[in-house]
């Protein structure tokens, strides 16, 4: 989610390299995120070749921001 949050879109291979995950593992994560409506899978053609791009949906972006806020709150609430 963080990776997709900082870019407009990325493909499967790029995410796999960045996150250093196996194809099966990444696929399973992405399927769950897609089911939750957080990630949109866009099938497109780049130079007449099929290409799968992944992007965060508005819902996914809001959920990520919410997660960020919550995480920050947890750290702020920790006793010093």
């Amino acid at each position, binding site marked *: 989610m963080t990776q997709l949050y900082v870019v407009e879109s990325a*493909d*499967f*291979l790029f*995410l796999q390299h960045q996150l250093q995950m196996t*194809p099966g593992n990444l*696929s399973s994560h992405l399927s769950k995120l897609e089911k939750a409506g957080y990630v949109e899978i866009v099938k497109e053609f*780049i130079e007449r070749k099929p*290409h*799968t791009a992944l992007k965060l949906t508005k819902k996914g972006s809001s959920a990520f921001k919410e997660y960020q806020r919550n995480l920050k709150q947890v750290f702020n609430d920790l006793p010093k």
Partner: protein
Amino acid sequence: MNTKTSLREVERRTYISYHQDGLIDIFVGVYVLLFGFGILLMTVTDFSTWFVIPAIFPAIMVPIWISAKKRITMPRIGYVKFGSRGANKLMAVFLGLMVAGLGVFMVFSFSSSQAWALALRNLIISNGMFIIGISAAAISSLFAYTMGLKRLYAYGLLALVLFLAGHFVTVPFAYSLLTIGLTIIINGSVLLIGFIRKYPLSQGDETNVEKSL
């Protein structure tokens, strides 16, 4: 924990990973090298159309660079589309450089009619290597900072050292350019070889999984 800094760090790392192939270095190096050859050609053979090279080169090389990115980088590490924030920053740098270039052009244009412009022009000409060295280092550092590519600082430093040396011990301008261009090309080629070794072409497993999405 500063979440903004962490996100910026993720964004920076993503951007750097897309430029770790050394292609940008090779193309910039070839540009500097051709520029140097052009000036050398001008001094040796009186071929005075060398200034056409910097003008037409980007128009020819940018499509080749994009094509190289598609053929070498994308099949190995995949494709990413960055948001408009980074592009806007780069555009601001380009616009700033164009304004600065226009300023220098104005100084040279007004030098025949305005005393201040003539004085400034003479100052630029008499300290040409010095000013070019500082400008090259500043421009390189600006791009290094904007793009997050630390090796551009090293190129800027190399240009500064070579041009300053040229100013004090009178090394021809073309030789300094050729040295810088060649160094950048060699470094870019080393990065490209390392990149190709690190990321061999995928065997199709990912594509099958990708299709199942």
